[in-house]
């Protein structure tokens, strides 16, 4: 049941992202002397909710500065649409082209025809992108709808990334049960005593526990990813059944850099989640109580990774400090082709630090057999005693 649900979920997210891009307001200006043909086009565009006309004194300059998304200019025998490269140019171009070519193509054709324009010109919107350089000069990089570049891959959600992030759910579950086995179950079966009697340091035992749980978690997550990837690849190979999937918005490949990044992030997350789960179960003395104690942390751990799929949630100087989420955002960044930078180092450092602190606390609860309730109870008692003494002496 999980795989179809995840497949539908990832499809919805892809469409959500695409719709979110499409529904953005596209501001446009009309440049040059107006004629009846341009006015007609203008009227058609204004009927679309995401086209917004703005008045510009210097449309070309405003376009270059990003104050306006597109400029429509009447040329001798065609209408030119210029869009800003700094914005999501490919999506914009696609959106405008698709809009003009599909839904109200007939209306446009009639409008152009009635204004004496040739029918073929009605489809001849030249999509021209500006590559704005530091000097402010502009350069044409595409000329016509037929010749326009394909949608920029970096703007799209990778299906592989979606599956990868959903497979992290299995990584979390893969860490939860072994972590209960190496902590609470050891107490329940009384095997913790025999572990404590081994002539090896407690830190080594903790290291062994986290290595075992991490391996189990990573393997279960990766196996899950591979199986989901295989199922999804098989289903999506029949793209005719899913017309929206066959669009350029869905990227379904995995290169070497992404594979290495995926494995690295997976291992990092496996260690981090295992350490957190071991900590969450370290003060439980029965499997039942451990299951209860792991419910809430597991819920948080399972909910965080899919959040990385939200549009516009990127790895930045703030998000890099949020454990787990930062790892999935790092993965997203790797999949988006973001080069290695300082935020990646911070993510790795934060993950390792949180893992270390979790394991250090777990070590105390496990091997010193500290009961947190008793520990804080004793502190509260001694504070109350001190307080009452002060009151008495006063």
């Amino acid at each position, binding site marked *: 049941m999980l795989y179809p649900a995840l497949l539908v979920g990832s499809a919805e997210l892809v469409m959500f992202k695409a719709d979110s891009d499409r529904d953005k307001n596209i501001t446009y200006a009309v440049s040059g002397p107006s004629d009846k043909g341009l006015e007609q086009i203008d009227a058609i565009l204004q009927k679309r909710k995401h086209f917004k006309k703005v008045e510009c004194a210097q449309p070309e300059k405003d376009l270059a500065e990003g104050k306006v998304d597109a400029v429509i200019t009447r040329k001798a025998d065609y209408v030119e649409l210029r869009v800003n490269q700094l914005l999501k140019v490919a999506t914009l171009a696609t959106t405008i082209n698709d809009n003009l070519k599909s839904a109200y193509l007939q209306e446009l054709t009639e409008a152009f025809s009635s204004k004496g324009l040739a029918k073929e010109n009605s489809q001849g919107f030249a999509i021209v992108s500006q590559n704005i350089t530091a000097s402010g000069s502009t350069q044409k990089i595409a000329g016509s709808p037929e010749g326009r570049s394909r949608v920029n891959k970096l703007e799209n959600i990778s299906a592989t990334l979606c599956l990868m992030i959903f497979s992290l759910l299995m990584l979390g579950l893969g860490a939860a049960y072994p972590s209960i086995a190496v902590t609470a179950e050891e107490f329940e079966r009384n095997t913790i*005593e025999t572990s404590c*009697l081994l002539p090896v340091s407690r830190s080594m035992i903790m290291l062994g526990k986290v290595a075992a749980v991490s391996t189990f978690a990573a393997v279960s997550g990766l196996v899950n990813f591979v199986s989901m990837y295989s199922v999804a690849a098989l289903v999506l190979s029949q793209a005719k059944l899913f017309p929206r999937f066959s669009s350029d918005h869905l990227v379904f490949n995995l290169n070497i850099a992404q594979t290495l990044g995926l494995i690295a992030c997976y291992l990092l997350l496996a260690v981090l989640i295992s350490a957190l789960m071991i900590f969450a179960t370290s003060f439980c003395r029965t499997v039942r109580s451990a299951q209860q104690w792991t419910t809430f942390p597991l819920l948080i751990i399972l909910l965080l990774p899919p959040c990385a799929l939200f549009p516009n949630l990127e790895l930045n100087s703030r998000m890099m400090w949020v454990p787990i989420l930062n790892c999935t955002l790092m993965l997203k960044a790797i999949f988006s082709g973001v080069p290695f930078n300082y935020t990646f180092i911070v993510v790795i450092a934060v993950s390792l630090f949180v893992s270390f602190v979790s394991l250090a606390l777990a070590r105390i609860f496990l091997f010193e057999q500290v009961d947190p309730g*008793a520990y804080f109870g004793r502190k509260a008692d001694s504070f109350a005693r001190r307080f009452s003494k002060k009151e008495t002496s006063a």
Partner: protein
Amino acid sequence: MKLHVEKLCKRFYEPARGEFFACNEISFEVGQGEIFGLLGPNGAGKTTTLRVISTILKPTSGSAHLGDIDIFQDPDAARRAMGFLSSSTGLYERLTPREILTYFGRLSGVAEPALKEKIESLFLALDFKQFADARCGKLSQGTKQKVSIARAIIHDPKLMIFDEPSTGLDVLATQSMHEFIKQAKGEGKCIVFSTHIMSEAEKLCDRIGIINDGKILAQGTLAELRALTGETYLEEVFMALVRKYELAK
């Protein structure tokens, strides 16, 4: 090798009781080839004392030395020289006795060729070779206890700690446990043994420490304890000492 325990304390906290000492200034010595028995009722502090000595728990204060080894300063070295056996066998149910002995033997630093020989000799000595490759979860309580004994002595420890080892065992298994303890004594091991069964203490122990409420009320040979209290039977000796302590409190 001699065990020397000096003013050992372990403090716990429970919301209902507040802070309390499970063992309070416990001191005793056990020589080579000697069995020292800690005799006391349930909750007297026997298990806590033995757990602290075996480094499972950290002491609140006090010291313990095994020969030249400071047990609390160098717990790894101390663990290498001691074996601990309790009534709860604490075996991994999915492993076989052979796997358990190999695992513990390796981690205890027993060399690989010697380990195989040692495991085979333990199978024969404790008479459970037929169960060597069966999962521990399927074994009877008596056989589990034998596996537990084998695990405790796989590294040939100098100090053996027995925490109520015969609890839950039938007469035959108890008898073989007693034989094993006597054999360990014969091999010159230093043995600390806790029990609440008077006859067991009387039968096995060279010296006995009567423990109650976390404190050792008296210790010595059975004859010395009899002389101290003027009673004949160990049960009466025990009761006399407890009554005296309660009155003093």
